[in-house]
Structure formats: C-alpha cells, structure tokens
C-alpha cells in the first residue's frame, strides 16, 4: 500500500503520521503543499495535524486552497482514500470533501488529553479493526474541534452510518459528540483525535495502531 502525507507550513504531526503508516507496512512519501501532483499510484493521502499557515483566517482555510489540495480533490473524486487528522480534518471540511465545519471549542480552551471515543461503525477501512460500540482511548489536542453542521447534514450522517467516532465525554461542544466522520463513499475519514499518537507502546496507548494496521491490510487487498 502506498501512502502520501501532505506537509503544509505549520504541519507538526506529519512525521508521526508517516511513521504510523510505515509501521503498518505502507510505503510513505511526503508531499509538499506547493506540489501540484500526488505521487503516482498512491492509495491513501494523509492530511496531518498541526497549524497549517498558522491557522490564519480559519483553521485549514488557506491549506485547503493550496495546489496539492486540487490534486487531493482529484484523488478523492477518483475514489481514492484519504485520512485527515485534527488540522487535516479541518482541511477536509474547508475543501468540502467532508461536510460541516470545526469551530472554536465551546469552552474556549485548548484541550490536550487522552479522550475515550466510542467507535460508532466498523463499516469502513479505517474502523474495521474495531467493534462498533467499543470504547478506545485516543489523544486529542485542539482548540477548534467543535464540529458543527446543520440539522439535515447531522441527520444524514447518522442515517448513512457515517459517524465514525464519538466522544463519550464531549470535550469541545461538538454536535452529536462527533469526533470523526466518513464521506458518502466511506473512503475519506476526518477525525479530531490523533490515532498516530496512540500507535506504539511508548506512546502510552496503542488503540490507534489498529486503525493503521487494518487500513493497510484492507488496502493491500484492494
């Protein structure tokens, strides 16, 4: 399986994400935001956490308009896979590849801790290694993770089983306790928590490792 990780100025989880992909057996290439094309035959694009472009204007807004994101859109339109974590989730909503938006945390504070998440669906390449209803511990570290969308979108996400993860103890005010959502074709996942920060024993938890291992296994067969 071939993965590409996009690097924006201000990304700071790009190498962590690349390491998690590599540990799961992927060939990983880093891609600079000014590049106009993804490497050939990439199966999945990782959009990492961090503070792309200093979070100026809105989190992810400037990154979403960078040259590489045009290529990301083409990749997703072709049915390619993408995983956006934290700032990467914000970029995916700003590109409109995922619905809704991420606003300032309701408590206004930056929240940094391990959050218990409920896996809402195991029906995706990202969550197939978990049981629906299972609670896992994945670190969060964000100031703008308050997911919002209009009532129709929220109902649609629920009806189509596209809510991947919810918080068991909502840390940021997000609608429906949403921590991560899937695209309509279930091939794009955006989530605020950081599975790549719970991917090795040294991280203090390994609940995120399953996401990468089962993703790599599924895409190797695809």
């Amino acid at each position, binding site marked *: 399986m071939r993965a590409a990780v996009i690097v924006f100025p201000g990304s700071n989880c790009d190498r962590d994400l690349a390491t998690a992909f590599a540990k799961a057996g992927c060939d990983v290439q880093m891609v600079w935001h000014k590049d106009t094309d993804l490497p050939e035959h990439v199966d999945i694009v990782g959009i990492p956490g961090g503070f792309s472009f200093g979070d100026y*204007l*809105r989190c992810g*807004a*400037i990154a979403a*308009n960078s040259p590489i994101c045009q290529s990301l859109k083409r990749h997703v339109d072709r049915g390619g896979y993408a995983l956006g974590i934290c700032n990467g989730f914000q970029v995916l*909503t*700003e590109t409109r590849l995922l*619905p*809704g*938006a991420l*606003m*300032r*945390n*309701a*408590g*206004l504070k930056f929240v940094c801790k391990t959050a218990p998440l409920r896996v809402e669906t195991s029906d995706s390449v990202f969550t197939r290694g978990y049981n629906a209803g299972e609670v896992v511990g994945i670190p969060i570290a964000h100031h703008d993770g*308050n997911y*919002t*969308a209009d009532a129709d979108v929220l109902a649609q996400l629920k009806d189509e089983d596209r809510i991947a993860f919810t918080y068991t103890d909502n840390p940021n*005010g997000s609608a429906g306790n949403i921590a991560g959502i899937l695209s309509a074709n279930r091939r794009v996942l955006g989530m605020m928590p950081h599975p790549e920060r719970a991917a090795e024993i040294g991280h203090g938890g390994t609940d995120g490792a399953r996401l990468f291992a089962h993703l790599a296994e599924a895409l190797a067969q695809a």
Partner: protein
Amino acid sequence: MKARVHVMLKNGVLDPQGEAVRHALGALGFDGVAGVRQGKVIELDLADGTSEETVKAMCEKLLANTVIERYDIELA
C-alpha cells in the same frame, strides 16, 4: 479602490467567543448585555474597477466559510 468585508457567524450558529465576551462584560458590571456576536473585518486594497462579483467570489472561495459564516461587502 477599497473593499471592506464583514464576516459573521450565521444566526443560529452558537458563537463561543461572543458568549465569553458577554460574560466578561457582565463581570465588569455592564448590565443588560443580552448578546455578543464576534466576527471579522477584512479590508482589501483592490485595483480600480474590481467588480463586486469578484469580491463576492473571494468571499465564497476563501474569506468566509459559508457553512457557518455569512458576509457583507462594502465597496468604497
């Protein structure tokens, strides 16, 4: 020419920062502040003759996230 773009959260979208400002005003003894909404003002220095349509396109593509925000354009 200049344009000024006001970006505000849409009505109905809870504004946590505005709420915090409202609480702070109350703590300072300013009574009767029923609500505070916080937004952005973006000033653009533009080539003469730039159309409002162009500024609108800037808002739609970048300056506002129309999922949660609305915008008003003032040309001067």
